[in-house]
């Protein structure tokens, strides 16, 4: 009977380790779901969202084009740096079957988002984001977050935070070189 407390301590030690590991694993699964490995190389989660012009845009309707999917917000300073680059890149690569899509993950009003986009001279569709869409992409807890889709709608790259322009160009070229451009011709 005298050993019982020691056994109890031993069991408690094992349970403590399991408890810690379990909570850590649960947190990791939640934070990264779907994990990077699950996203990249797979079909991008489809969605349909309203755009600033009142129309709706369905991501899968862009099949045949390479897509840069940029999650941003009006309060995000680094996002403002990227936007003029995106305007240029849309002009440069758009004719080759490339489309940038901005998703505003914002609490701001539609009017404020539209005003911001106008000030930035945005020449690509801006969609009004929803949390569920961000969650389907693994949770957009960092802005900007940018995904690159090939012409078949598969995710080829993802970038968190502000990157250099050349990083974007490399990903765009890679995205445009993959998949089938057939549907873009219709």
């Amino acid at each position, binding site marked *: 009977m005298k050993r019982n407390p020691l056994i109890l301590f031993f069991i408690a030690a094992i349970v403590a380790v399991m408890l810690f590991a379990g909570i850590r694993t649960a947190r990791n699964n939640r934070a990264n779901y779907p994990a990077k490995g699950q996203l990249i190389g797979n079909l991008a989660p489809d969605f349909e969202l309203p755009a600033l012009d009142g129309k709706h845009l369905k991501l899968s309707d862009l099949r045949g084009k390479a897509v840069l999917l940029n999650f941003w917000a009006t309060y995000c300073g680094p996002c403002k740096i990227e936007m003029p680059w995106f305007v240029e890149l849309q002009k440069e690569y758009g004719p080759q079957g490339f489309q940038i899509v901005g998703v505003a993950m914002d609490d701001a009003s539609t009017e*404020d988002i539209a005003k911001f986009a106008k000030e930035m001279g945005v020449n690509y569709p801006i969609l009004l984001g929803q949390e569920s869409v961000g969650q389907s992409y693994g949770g957009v807890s960092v802005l*900007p977050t940018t995904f690159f889709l090939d012409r078949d709608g598969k995710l080829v790259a993802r970038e968190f935070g*502000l990157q250099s322009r050349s990083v974007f160009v490399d990903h765009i070229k890679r995205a445009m070189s993959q998949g089938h451009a057939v549907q873009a011709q219709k």
Partner: protein
Amino acid sequence: MKIPLASAFLLFSAWAWAQDDLGSQGPAVKMAPAPLITAVQGKPATVPLSFRVAPGYHINSNKPKSDFLIPTVLKVEATTDIVIGRTTYPEGHDMSFAFAPDEKLNVYTGDFKVDVLVRPLRSVQAGKYIVRGTLKYQACDNSACYPPKQLPISFDVKIAKAPPAPHRNPAQSPHAHH
């Protein structure tokens, strides 16, 4: 008896450690325990609340320089016994960042303090009262921003009885009585 206690401590530590790890994700603003302020019935008192922005991050000040930026705002819940007065924010620091070297943002970094004016009603009973609220802030680092967050805050206010009003003798006048 010591070993079961040690076991319980071990389990609690593991749980707390894991929880702390949860909290370490992403930028954080934390509030230091607020000092216990004593306020006299019917008299105002200032409660200084101290916050700390995690290293490497900044949050907008209460008066950021653009309408698009989200200001740091402390909202204190109204109570029936204590009137919540003016909230005084510190001035932010004008700083430029790598993502916008030509632009100055007005931000809080490191430690900052927000003062809240409280005034217990004259009728409130003496004792300790808890006041709750939230600090809304939006953080960025040098290359990314994070969605707005709301930090729950609370502080205690000890209400002391007001000293008795000085006794006034009625005016003595020879003309007071007819």
